[in-house]
Structure formats: C-alpha cells, structure tokens
C-alpha cells in the first residue's frame, strides 16, 4: 500500500485515497441506509406529517334560511358579521393598550377586557357580532392576540313588524321563539368539510371543488303574512291600545277563501333585533299563547248552533227579564234592558239574558259539541311554539250558571287563533277550514273531507244577523264602511279576578267583510282598556281601519260608482208601486166578529184596529211591525177584558 518516492520517502498517497474512498463509501452507505430508513420505515408517518403541513381541512358554514312574507318581502335574513376573540397569552405583553383600544371601540369595560387578557384559556370571546365599523377599527388597530372571526347574525329589516310571530334566534343561531323556533331544523345551515392546500405562508388554495358543490344553506320559509296588512293592523292596534290606555292587544286578519293569516299583530311590539332588551312577556305571541274569556263576541256561534238545531229562528221572542235575571246566587245583567226581544235583537243589542235562555233551550251537551267542533279546547293546526288549547270543561261539569255564562263568553277560555278559526267556519259557509300561516313548506293537504258544522242557510242567517249588529243600530256601528256591508259582533268581557269578576275588561270585535259573502275576517282584542271598555268603541274602529286598508290594498274597496249605487239603493231601488202602497193611507178596515190576521201590519195600524174593539194589547219585543199575535186569527174577540195587564188578553209580538 505504500511506496517510496525518489527521495526515498514513504508514499502514503495511495493509502490516503483508499481512506477517502472508504470514508466516502461509508458516508454514502450511511446516507443510503438513512434514506432507506426514512423511505421505508418512517415514510408513512412522514407522509402524514407533510400532508398536515401542506393540506388543511376547512369547514364552510352556510347561511340560515330567510323568512319571507307572502309576496316575497324579506322578514328575516342572515348577514355576515365579525366577532372579536382574544388569544390571552399573545395579548398579555401589551395588555394595557389592548384593553384600552378594545374598550373604546367595542364599548366593553376596560376591567372586563383586562380580566379576559389575564385568563389562562387559549381562546376567549370579547364581543360577538359587532358592526362593520367596529370590525374595521379593530383591524386597523392591529392589536396582538386580537382576531376577528366571521359569523352570521340574524337581522329583521322591518324591525318590530310581526316580531312575535317571527320569534328570534340566539347568539349561536338557534331559533328560540316563533317561526324561527318552529322551523329551526329547516332553516339551520349545514357545514361542508373540504381539504385545501396551504402555501408556505399558510394561505389556503382551492385546487378542486371537492365537497364544495353541496348546498349547505338553510332553506327559506314563506309565511302567509302580508307585510302591508300586518303593518296596518299593528298601527291601528297600537293607536287604539294607546288611546284607551290598554295593557295589550291582538289583531288577526284572515283571508276567508284560503284560511291564510294575513296579519297577526301583537301590541306591545317586539323588535327581534334587540330581543335581549325585551321582557319575555312582550316577546310572546299573545294570539297563540294567551287564553281569554271572549265575552259576547262568541254569541253568533251559539246562535249558529241553535239555528242549526232548529231551536230558534231570528224572530223568535225571548223574555229578557227587563235586564236582570237571577240564576242561583248570581244575577245576569243586560246593558240594554228589555222585556221581550226577538233573537235578532238579542244578538244586535248583545243581550246576555236572551243568550243564556237560548243556550238553555239548546242544552249543554249540544252547545259543547258545537264548541268542540269549532275547535275550542284544542290547539289550532298552526303548531306555534307555546300555543295553548284554551279552557273548555266537559259538558257534564257545567252547572246551569256555567251554561248561562258560557253562552255569553264567560267560563270558557279561548285564544284569538281559536276564535278566528271558529268564525272562519261561519264565513266559509259552515265548513271547517284550517288556518294557515306557512306557505312554504306547504303542509300536506288534509285527506278527509272538511267537516261541516253549520248548513249554508244557518251561516247565511248568522251573517245576516251579524250584519244587523253593524249596519243597523247594533253595538258594532263603528265598524260600518260606506258602500260595503260589514258583519260583526262586539265583545266586552269582564275579566276574572280573585273571588269573581273584577273591574277590568277585554274589549273585542269580530268583523267580516263583505257581510254577505265574507272575503276577510278581522278580529281585534284589546286587553284592559281603561278610558272606555266597550268592544264597539275600542275594538270595532280598529277592525274598520284594517278592513278599509285591506280592501283598498287589494282593489276591493267600493269605488265612486259602487258607492253611488249603494247610496241610490237605499231609496231608489224600492219598487215604485210598493213604495206607493207603503206611503198610501191605510184602507178603512172593517172590524169583523173574529180576530183578524194582523201579522205583518205596522204597529200603528194594528193598534188602531184593536182600539176600535176597545182592546189595548200587551206589546212584546221591540220594533214597528207585528210578527205574531195572540189570540190567533179567526178566534172570537176576547170580551170584557179591556185593560192591559197580567191577563195578557191580547198580545202582539213586534220586530
């Protein structure tokens, strides 16, 4: 391995070369071994590590579905908003500056921010869903450890419009009340997970569309509510509640043809944008959750049942006890005391005594059956959160006084929605129709034929009698609309208090327009008005205003021609010969040997005829036309009893 140089020195160059070769050989082998080790043994693990470094798993969150009105107007939507969070250990070195800036921009107290900076946690929220202006200021400040995260916040562009119906969502986007809660599952957005590549600076790159084609947005919900009519209802209600210093109020507007709820107004208003600042009592949808004794507004339903069962006809007379009737230890009173009244006037003047007697003729079992068929005692099909089923005790438990009380809307608890559903049946020719609040998703249509509660004749009669309440001198005169008929019924229900009924009232009005073939049903309830408590004064004008607005909005308000025609009809549509006959002096009538038929005669002529025979009849009922007589026509004249009195020798029923 060694040689000698010319000078005789030993030559180690060959050995050196060999050593270097061995060294490099070993080094190369070591590298090969290491490469082999890395490739074969650690390869899988290293591959995973590299993937973690180069690829990142990313989630994309969709938007919560919107809530729209029947015309597509947006009632609730989600918008992007920034939330501020803190990584405490990174913010600690400049704690003072961070706290001061955050406090100034976000309006959070300095001490609170400092406390969070001192936290040992790795992540703390400072404030969620801040405004764009605040987010910009935070970004500009470039504070260490302070970051912004994008979230979706719920906005209600119309403020308090239908606030209680819409409900609200919590900070985490979960529906907590109203439609937001009922359709939370449908509207909740999904999330998609997909892998993205990261560059050296950590920026994300989308190299394919894997996982991104999935529709992750929540689905919209479309209501039957019409924003315009809802707004009208809310304004009219607010004006009345404030004017009469009431506690709260409800207005419901229903389209009869479809059963669609066009407006469901609650007062006091609730703005879901600021739900945290509102009391729970204001947030609730009173139309669904509050149970009231409806008072006289329920009377047309009893009348419908009695007409259907053939118990009464509109001209049947009832003795109304001159306005005071004792049942057991209780006394029922009428605000319009009368002796005898036909059924039509019992409704027109809202006689409690007359209604109680009709209910007694009908019987508790039958009345209960009709109330149940009309939907009382059960929830409506709207499935609104917190909806109540009202109070309707079994008929077996009704005492005589209970039956009397329920006849004029006491001792029974109903929600405004139940009341609307029952009158919707009357307006729909006696066939039951479900109320509808949701257009999309559309509920499955009922398979069974709609139940018929009243015959068409019965509902026509009930509507005609309800028209008298408004169009004649009834309690609902303030709901009249020129040029179009309105059917309605007032309610002034004394509210139950400890130990009986107190001095507070629920004023209500149920209105249907046009009266003979209703298109709209409007219900107004004002709770505890103080300046005046009559339903005809407090609630009827609200219903009128809403009706006019709804009719004008849908082009159904009588135009100038229609109104002129309506006015003409009052005088000119009477046949001229008939008019002449009516106005002509009465023909001299011979008083025969038997009692003549005086039914249909004006009272004045009937009295003239009877006075000729020296008879002063007992008059029952109120009106100008004779509708019944006793003795019957053809009977001999009662002799020797010429005075009015207890014997009732000659009785005339008037209407």
């Amino acid at each position, binding site marked *: 391995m060694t040689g000698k140089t010319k000078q005789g020195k030993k030559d180690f160059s060959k050995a050196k070369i060999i050593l270097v070769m061995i060294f490099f050989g070993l080094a190369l082998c070591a590298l090969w071994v290491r490469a082999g080790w890395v490739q074969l043994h650690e390869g899988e693990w290293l591959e995973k590590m590299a993937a973690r470094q180069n690829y990142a798993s990313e989630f994309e969150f969709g938007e919560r579905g919107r809530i729209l009105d029947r015309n597509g107007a947006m009632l609730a939507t989600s918008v992007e908003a920034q939330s501020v969070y803190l990584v405490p250990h990174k913010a600690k070195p400049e704690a003072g500056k961070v706290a001061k800036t955050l406090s100034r921009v976000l309006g959070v107290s300095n001490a609170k921010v400092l406390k969070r900076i001192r936290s040992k946690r790795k992540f703390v929220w400072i404030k969620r869903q801040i405004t*764009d202006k605040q987010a910009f200021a935070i970004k500009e400040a470039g504070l260490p450890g302070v970051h912004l995260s994008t979230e979706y916040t719920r906005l209600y562009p*119309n403020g308090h419009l239908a606030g209680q119906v819409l409900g609200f969502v919590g900070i985490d986007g979960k529906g907590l009340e109203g439609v937001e809660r009922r359709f939370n599952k449908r509207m909740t957005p999904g999330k998609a997970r997909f892998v993205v590549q990261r560059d050296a600076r950590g920026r994300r*790159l989308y190299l394919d569309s894997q996982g991104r084609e999935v529709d992750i947005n929540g689905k919209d919900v479309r209501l039957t509510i019409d*924003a315009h009519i809802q*707004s009208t209802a809310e304004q009219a209600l607010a004006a009345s509640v404030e004017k009469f210093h009431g506690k709260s109020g409800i207005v419901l507007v229903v389209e009869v043809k479809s059963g669609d709820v066009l407006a469901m107004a609650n007062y006091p208003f609730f703005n879901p944008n600021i739900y945290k600042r509102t009391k729970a009592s204001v947030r609730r949808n009173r139309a669904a959750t509050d149970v009231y004794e409806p008072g006289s507004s329920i009377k047309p339903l009893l009348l419908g049942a009695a007409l259907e069962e053939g118990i009464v006809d509109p001209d049947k007379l009832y003795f109304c006890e001159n306005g005071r009737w004792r049942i057991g230890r209780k006394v029922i009173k009428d605000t319009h005391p009368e002796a005898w009244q036909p059924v039509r006037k019992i409704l027109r003047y809202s006689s409690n005594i007359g209604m109680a007697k009709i209910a007694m003729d009908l019987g508790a079992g039958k009345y209960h059956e009709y109330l149940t068929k009309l939907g009382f005692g059960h929830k409506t099909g709207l499935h609104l959160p917190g909806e109540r089923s009202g109070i309707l005790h079994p008929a077996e438990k009704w005492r005589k006084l209970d039956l009397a009380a329920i006849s004029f809307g006491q001792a029974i608890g109903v929600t405004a929605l139940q009341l609307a559903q029952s009158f919707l049946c009357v307006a729909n020719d006696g066939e039951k129709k479900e109320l509808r609040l949701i257009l999309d998703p559309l509920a499955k249509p009922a398979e069974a034929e709609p139940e018929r509660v009243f015959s068409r004749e019965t509902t026509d009669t009930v509507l005609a009698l309800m028209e008298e309440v408004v169009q004649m001198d009834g309690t609902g005169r303030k709901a009249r609309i*020129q*040029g179009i008929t309105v059917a309605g019924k007032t309610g002034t229900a004394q509210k139950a208090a400890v130990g009986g009924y107190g001095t507070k009232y629920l004023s209500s009005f149920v209105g249907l327009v046009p009266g003979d073939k209703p298109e709209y049903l409007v219900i107004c309830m004002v709770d505890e008005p103080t300046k005046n408590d009559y339903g005809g004064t407090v609630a009827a004008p609200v219903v009128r205003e809403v009706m006019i607005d709804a009719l004008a909005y849908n082009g159904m308000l009588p135009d100038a021609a229609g109104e002129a025609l309506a006015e003409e009809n009052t005088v000119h549509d009477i046949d001229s010969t008939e008019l002449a006959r009516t106005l002509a002096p009465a023909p001299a009538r011979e008083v025969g040997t038997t009692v003549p038929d005086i039914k249909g005669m004006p009272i004045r002529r009937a009295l003239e005829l009877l006075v000729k025979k020296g008879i002063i009849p007992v008059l029952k009922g109120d009106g100008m036309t004779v509708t019944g007589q006793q003795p019957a026509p053809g009977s001999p004249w009662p002799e020797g009893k010429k005075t009015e009195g207890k014997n009732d020798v000659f009785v005339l029923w008037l209407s």
Partner: protein
Amino acid sequence: MSLIDRNWLPMFLAALGVALGLGLASVWLNIERMDLAYDLRNLEKERDRKSALLVKLEVERDNLASPHRLRKLAEKYGLTVATPGQIRSGDEE
C-alpha cells in the same frame, strides 16, 4: 463505426432537450396552477364579500321600504289610505 454509434450523441442530446423541455413545462404548469389557485381564492373572497354586501344592501333597502316607514313618510306628506268612494276603477267610462 455503425450508424447507431454515429447518431448516439445527437439522439442523446435531443432526448435530454425533450426531457428538459417537459420538465420546464411541468414547472411552468405548476406555477400557473398555483397562480390560478391564488386568483381563484381572491375571486372567491371578492365574491363572498360582494354577496355579503348585497345581503346588507337588501336589508337596508327593505328597512327603507318597510311599510312602517312608508306609512310615516306618507303621513308626513299628507297621504292617507283611500276611503270608500275615492277610488276610481280603470274600466270606468
């Protein structure tokens, strides 16, 4: 010297050139791909930003055109809901 022996060098050089060209093309494509990915990302960000702005503008529009606000404005300018008799139908003579 055979024909193969004579053409060996040009063929080797040509193959080397092709390999180099393909390699460069691959690098260029990768760079383009990354550029495209960056652009795509930016466009997506821009789209998201504009979508968010659109929603905010829609909210603002709906807020400005809310029935409550329009009613207040109408009152301010003396406009009210038509009363019976004030409406004229289009088909009237």
